[in-house]
């Protein structure tokens, strides 16, 4: 096993984990504070990526388009919350599943009607398109480094927001005991809308940053949604810190599994067996991780509710 491969895969893991965190942070807050299962979270990620591709095309600049896409997706999220999701908070989880599943269907078709069936192209910003040399003689895509930088700084900002500001205090109060927060006079309706819009903006950021690496297409939100749910369950529902640790764990296990299992299998078994088993075994790993975490810590690593 070469050190360079290991380093490269660690950076990939970090990048994937941080992007997962952006998705999981919003999901865990909505779930934890509002006690709401929102399957449509992945749709906001898709809408964010589409808006980003459109704005980037129109303005010609990645960095001008990014804030526009974030704000626009936050507005979409707020409208969704006020018009529909608000009526679902009092309903049981199964009803929420059905309603937000319906939202997924509607969002997919509306996106298809507006942007067509073809997947969109989104280019990495100028200046970040080539590889960059890292100490140790390794070449690594500069854009992926930028993703890591953006993801890490947003995680830090979010941490400061939740632990040091008044809004953050209200969010934590809502997550640990909603009834008590209401009784203490928190305007929970407005808080919900703000949290939901913030979660939507984080989704858009993940969609926008991943756009140049993955294809911007209908259905992109559904698969990553399940991973985001795995993350928040591992971390403990409602906990930002849990989402962060869970996202990095899932990022590392998934990326490392994909990179290392086929290689180590090739040494033990015939190449054919290795190429057959490798990819699926690494996909299974994160679910094994989740089952193991739930077995030993049934409420996740960092339970938010005391």
């Amino acid at each position, binding site marked *: 096993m070469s050190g360079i491969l290991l380093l490269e895969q660690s950076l990939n893991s970090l990048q994937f984990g941080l992007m997962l965190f952006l998705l999981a942070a919003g999901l865990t807050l909505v779930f934890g504070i509002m006690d709401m299962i929102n399957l449509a979270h992945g749709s906001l990620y898709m809408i964010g990526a589409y808006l980003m591709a459109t704005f980037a095309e129109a303005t010609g600049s990645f960095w001008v388009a990014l804030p526009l896409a974030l704000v626009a997706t936050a507005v979409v999220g707020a409208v969704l919350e006020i018009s529909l999701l608000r009526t679902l908070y009092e309903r049981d989880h199964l009803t929420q599943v059905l*309603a937000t599943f319906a939202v997924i269907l509607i969002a997919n*078709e509306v996106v298809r009607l507006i942007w067509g069936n073809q997947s969109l192209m989104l280019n990495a910003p100028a200046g970040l398109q080539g590889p960059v040399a890292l100490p140790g003689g390794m070449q690594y895509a500069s854009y992926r480094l930028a993703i890591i930088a953006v993801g890490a700084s947003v995680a830090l900002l979010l941490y400061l927001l939740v632990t040091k500001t008044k809004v953050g205090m209200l969010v934590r109060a809502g997550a640990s005991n909603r009834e008590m927060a209401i009784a203490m006079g928190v305007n929970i309706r407005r808080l919900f809308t703000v949290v939901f819009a913030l979660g939507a903006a984080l989704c858009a950021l993940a969609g926008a940053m991943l756009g140049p690496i993955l294809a911007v297409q209908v259905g992109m939100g559904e698969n990553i949604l399940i991973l985001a749910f795995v993350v928040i369950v591992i971390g403990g529902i409602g906990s930002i810190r849990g989402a962060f640790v869970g996202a990095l764990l899932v990022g590392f296990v998934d990326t490392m599994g994909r990179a290392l299992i086929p290689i180590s299998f090739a040494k033990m078994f015939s190449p054919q067996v290795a190429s057959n088993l490798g990819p699926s075994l690494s996909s299974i790993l994160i679910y094994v991780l989740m089952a193991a975490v739930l077995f030993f810590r049934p409420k996740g690593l960092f339970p938010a509710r005391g």
Partner: protein
Amino acid sequence: MRLALLLLALIFPWAMHALGQDFYISFAARILIYAMAAASLNLVLGYGGMVSFGHAAFFGAGAYMVGILAAEGITSLWISWPIAIAVAALAALVVGAISLRTRGVYFIMITLAFAQMMYYVFVSLKAYGGDDGLSMPGRSTTGFGVSLSNDFVWYYLVLGLLAAVLYLLHRLIHSRFGRVIEAIRENEIRATAIGYPIYRYQLVCFVISGAIAGLAGALIANQTSYAGPSLLHWVQSGTLMIMVILGGVGRFWGGPVGAAVLLILEEVFSGTPILGAYSLHWQLPVGLILLAVVLWAPRGIAGAFAQKHS
């Protein structure tokens, strides 16, 4: 009402044949199969209060068993279908034994995790098609000269099996066992205090449900002569769940009604020539209708009907 539906189900193939619309006989058989799968999920989800987000695992396992046995040369339904049911039940036993130690959202996620694991296991079985799935040469053989490839025979066989399963479920739900299962859903602590071994009851319920899903899986593999990993994918689990919620959670007819309504909606909006190019966008009207059901029929379609009659 029920009599009329039964009559409709019985004469349906002849009516369609008379109208020259033989395609709809096979479509109706598909509805009946999904009705069975949804009814099996409704047993654990609606009556048992166990929200299984991995039910496609048992459905898909049943389908794969029929496919794999056919690939190995065993096509007799007398062998392959019981094996499909047994394997699905065994899978449900293992998944249930571990998952039932958790509650609430964590139960949802751990059943999902197991289903996804099985999904990737079947994807990795390159000898049995891997990603592409497994095509079978034809439907299972009966051994006494009746061919299931005849759509009439197939339809009535599926209808008969669905009727048998629904009868069994009806008896089960109204038995002492069914009452205990519902009591556990309503209040676990109280059921424990009365002295019921709730874990064992829930596990048995989960296994029965898995076995029925396995039979439905064996049927769907026969229906299309194909077993693929998409049958185990979490989207399939989600679809089964949507069917149950749409029809009515914990309503006896919830599963079948939901399956029929969802599949018919899909068919109407995706296959009607009048809609022309817009039929590509069938998900939009289906999504809007689902939303309408959530907002105005909170207890599902079967629940809304029951309310009107009482």
